[in-house]
């Protein structure tokens, strides 16, 4: 049977289970409350209310979507193994690569759905206040999703050898914060030398560089650095390499 067809079936099922899960709804409600609560901060900014609403809304969307992505990615395969749901999958002609691909794609779609719903909530608030959207808004949302793709792939890989969901979430959250330190890492590398400099370089080179995707912070300004082709290649590498490493761990796994 077609490899991608099976992956598509698994992706669709993963998406369905994720959005029907009560935690999905809880995250959305939480996001709605916080986004609307940011009105208070916006009012205090007087004439910069529009900017504050946009910035706080996008920041909340990113952080909430991140929390959801980490929890979903850290637990998705582990939970199936623990509940033995995976028996009903791998007693069937399902190639393990297709399963992993489907699970990862399902998580990507779940993140996209969550971001889309939160965007609608945010847009409703902006419309309520009569503010136009800034030109960089949709780019910012899409780039948030790109960051989530990278961190989700990494979380799935880490979940395959980690001892618990909490440790997976913790490790991936640390990677997330380190990934935003690109600029500060450059500064520190210039100021340091010897072993410290090498350690910083290793960290900066091989942790996902989220500074490249921080369109939310740059606003309408274009990011300095690699162009769009490289960015897509970079995202693809950060999907395919964790996927392949996950496959190495997973293909000989027993259930």
């Amino acid at each position: 049977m077609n490899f991608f067809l099976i992956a598509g079936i698994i992706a669709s099922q993963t998406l369905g289970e994720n959005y029907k899960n009560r935690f999905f709804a809880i995250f959305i409600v939480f996001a709605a409350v916080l986004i609307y609560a940011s009105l208070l901060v916006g009012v205090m900014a007087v004439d910069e209310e529009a900017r504050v609403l946009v910035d706080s809304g996008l920041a909340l969307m990113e952080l909430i979507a991140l929390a959801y992505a980490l929890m979903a990615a850290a637990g998705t395969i582990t939970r199936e193994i623990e509940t033995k749901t995976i028996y009903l999958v791998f007693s069937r002609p399902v190639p393990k690569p297709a399963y992993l691909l489907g699970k990862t794609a399902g998580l990507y779609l779940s993140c996209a759905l969550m971001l889309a719903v939160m965007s609608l909530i945010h847009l409703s608030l902006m419309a309520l206040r009569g503010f136009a959207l800034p030109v960089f808004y949709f780019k910012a949302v899409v780039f948030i999703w790109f960051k989530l793709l990278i961190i989700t792939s990494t979380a799935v890989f880490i979940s395959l050898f980690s001892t618990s969901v909490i440790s997976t979430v913790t490790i991936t959250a640390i990677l997330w914060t380190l990934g935003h330190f690109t600029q500060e890492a450059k500064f520190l590398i210039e100021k340091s030398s010897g072993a410290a400099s090498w350690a910083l370089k290793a960290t900066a080179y091989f942790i996902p560089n989220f500074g490249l995707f921080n369109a939310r912070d740059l606003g309408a300004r274009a990011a300095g650095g690699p162009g769009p082709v490289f960015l897509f290649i970079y995202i693809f590498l950060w999907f395919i390499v964790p996927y392949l490493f996950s496959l190495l761990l997973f293909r000989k796994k027993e259930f």
Partner: protein
Amino acid sequence: MNATGENIAVFSGVTKIYRRRGFVSTLETTALNGLSFELRAGEITGLLGLNGAGKTTIMKLLTGLLFPTAGSVSVFGLPPADIASKKRIGFLPELPYFYPYSTAASALLYYAGLSGLERPAAEKRLEAVIEKVGLKKHAGKKVSEFSKGMMQRLGIAQAVIHDPELLILDEPVSGLDPLAIHEIRTLISGLNAQRHTVFLSSHSISELEKITDRVLIMVEGRLAKTVSRQDWERARGGLEEIFVQTVKSDGS
């Protein structure tokens, strides 16, 4: 019995050791030791043993969920992990668990899709299978609302939806009421009548007596005895007496 004599699954000198790595040492548990047997096409073969005898391990080795530490397993002449062999088997694990937010119908369609059925064919099979297992009026219900017996029925449904040649059923009547047990027994017999091979494990000796052609008795990871229907029909105490004697003599 509809046996045609052909071996569709073969265990040859299979040993399975579970290893658990600790801080200092590795804990090893031998689940199976030098196990050899065959499953013949068209037969209903039972697997009987105490808890920890290795029954579930055998089931998982047949389905490719586990790999043997030594020896070999073949299903339809292929390794169990081979996609081609998996297309022809249906597996019911002990206490099957489904995605909680799916309905019975959507779960079955999902598994049918994974087994290679195209959507129209899957929907057609779904109607027939869900009626057969007695879940027609619960088809639209979420799995999280199912009772244990309903989950078991759904488990059997997912095992047969793609019409596999070999059915591997781990405790198929576990948790079912007597009426449901009778229905499942009828279902299994009906499948065998259509030349499906069935391999099932159970703690219920009477169930195995009613339905199987022969029974493999496992004691501490070894095949202690193979008993045919004629053997236990001849024995005074039936299969139970043979089982107890086998366990006592082999275990000592």
